[in-house]
């Protein structure tokens, strides 16, 4: 049984395609700063990596599993602080500190998640928010360790790894890009695995999944921990880049932004949240340059997208492609009674089909 389960022709096909996309994506990311060598672009993209991982990992909960967490940034911050503190201790190298920070965040998420995932819907959302506020206040009040309000100061040292000098901005960028793409690939694999489809069952109908022998609590806990670990990588990239860590990383607004990114980008398409990250970041960037009423403009754009389109941008593209494919199929195959891609009802905002 096990052997036949592991037999891999679809695995190979699916994974091969995803790896190809990942390699192409990485090549693009590495080429961009060569084509446009302004440091501002590199900085912009590193922020994109960090917040992109936050939004993508949050979507594993929101879009894939139907768990709307309001406190995901807690793990972003935990990763950043753990990494920063370990590096400042001077005892470990960057990869060891990174692994320990991710592992430590996963442990924290395991403990918090074990409590949260037993609660349903809005109660789950609130308790994740509560734990985030708890972590935020620990950071703010434990001044001797974290620097409190001021953030983790004194810089984060970047000793060379395997001859790579991360103090060189280009090397730092390249390393972050590789880590980012690897994490996206890992999330993609999880979403396309039997586990990923089990999560879709739970999103759609947890009671039924339970009656089909799915241990719903254990599965939710599994994805909660994995999503937290991926978010911590985002925090770690940001800490490494800004050479510090700040309490805002753990503030509720950071979680809120991640939710905006998902809503702007959409959750039907796997990479949708990245489109949202890009959009929100671009808006943030330009709007702050050109106007002081930055919140007003942002809020308006979000309102227009959410109320006007009622789905994210990537979803719009996806639906359009699906509709076109359906029209083509209908044109070439005039047999009625196949199905129409019925417009998903209002619940689609939260429970859309994640591809």
């Amino acid at each position, binding site marked *: 049984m096990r052997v036949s*389960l592991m037999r891999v022709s*679809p695995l190979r096909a699916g*994974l091969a395609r995803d790896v190809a996309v990942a390699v192409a994506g990485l090549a693009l990311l590495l080429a961009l700063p060569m084509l446009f060598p302004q440091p501002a672009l590199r900085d912009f993209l590193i922020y994109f990596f960090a917040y992109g991982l936050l939004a993508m990992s949050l979507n594993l909960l929101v879009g894939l599993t139907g768990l709307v967490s309001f406190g995901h940034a807690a793990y972003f911050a935990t990763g950043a602080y753990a990494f920063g503190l370990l590096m400042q201790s001077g005892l470990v190298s960057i990869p060891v500190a990174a692994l320990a920070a991710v592992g430590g965040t996963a442990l924290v998420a395991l403990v918090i998640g074990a409590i949260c995932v037993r609660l349903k819907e809005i109660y789950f959302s609130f308790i994740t928010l509560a734990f985030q506020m708890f972590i935020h206040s620990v950071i703010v009040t434990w001044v001797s360790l974290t620097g409190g309000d001021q953030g983790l100061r004194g810089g984060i040292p970047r000793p060379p790894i395997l001859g790579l000098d991360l103090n060189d901005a280009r090397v730092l960028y390249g390393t972050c890009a590789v880590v980012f793409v690897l994490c996206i690939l890992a999330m993609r*694999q999880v979403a396309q695995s*039997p586990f990923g489809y089990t999560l879709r069952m739970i999103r759609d109908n947890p009671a039924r999944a339970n*009656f089909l022998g*799915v241990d719903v609590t254990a599965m939710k806990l599994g994805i909660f921990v994995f999503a937290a670990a991926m978010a911590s990588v985002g925090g770690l990239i940001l800490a490494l880049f800004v050479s510090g860590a700040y309490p805002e990383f753990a503030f509720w607004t950071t979680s809120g932004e991640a939710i905006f990114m998902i809503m702007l980008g959409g959750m039907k398409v796997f990479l949708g949240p990245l489109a949202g990250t890009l959009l929100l970041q671009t808006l943030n960037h330009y709007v702050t340059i050109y106007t002081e009423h930055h919140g007003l403009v942002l809020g308006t754009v979000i309102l227009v997208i959410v109320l006007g389109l009622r789905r994210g941008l990537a979803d719009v593209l996806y639906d359009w492609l699906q509709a076109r494919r359906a029209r083509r199929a209908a044109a070439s195959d005039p047999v009625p009674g196949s199905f129409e891609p019925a417009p998903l009802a209002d619940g689609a905002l939260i429970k859309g089909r994640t591809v």
Partner: protein
Amino acid sequence: MLRVEHLSKSFGGVRATRDVSIDFPTGSLTAIIGPNGAGKTTFFNLISGHVRPDEGRVLFDGADIVGLSSLEVVRRGMARAFQVASLFPSLTVREALTAAVVSHLRASGRVLSRFPVAAAGRRADEIMDLLGLDPKADVLSANLSHGDQKLLDIGLALAMDPKVLLLDEPTAGMGSEERWRMIGKVHRLWEVTGMTVLFIEHDMDIVFKIAQTIHVLKYGAVLAQGTPDAIRRNQDVIDAYLGTDHRLSETVGEA
């Protein structure tokens, strides 16, 4: 295979199940009938671990399963389909069945392989074949017709390879012709697989035609039990609700 002894359950003042004792022999096909609110669905909820009885025992394969969670009961080999089909709207028929088989194979936690896993996919194909769902394999569950939704709900239960299958009104909400088609499928399924099947049904023609044994529930208690012929002649049953027209009114209640 399955035996319940002195099963009782009250919800507040409502005594939904009263001292029910029934034996379901291995491989039997049994109908549970009774008017609306008789406690039929509650009876299924009690034996499938969804609701805990106040009193009584449920013996499955010789062991008392009262107190086990519905998850543990499924894993021991008792699966159910619901009065209102309980599906995964955003999954296609094939995806839903495959994911259910994956769960049955205890492979739900695998992250290193890709979905659909070959062995699970083959089993899902078999189930679709058995139920005649193969033309709908790639249709989203949400877009299926009512009848196909009921079929898929049964298919999901079949993915558990159950020893005992509980079907709560498989023909609910169907027209007469569709009902017979549906029940024909259920009957063939029972013949092919040799499972112990319990089904709740309102249509007396259907019940009398295919069930081996019938148990009539009323106000939560067993009013009568026996072969179709015996039930047809039973004066209590006739008085209680068969009346002159022996077809009960059709209902679609909540699961």
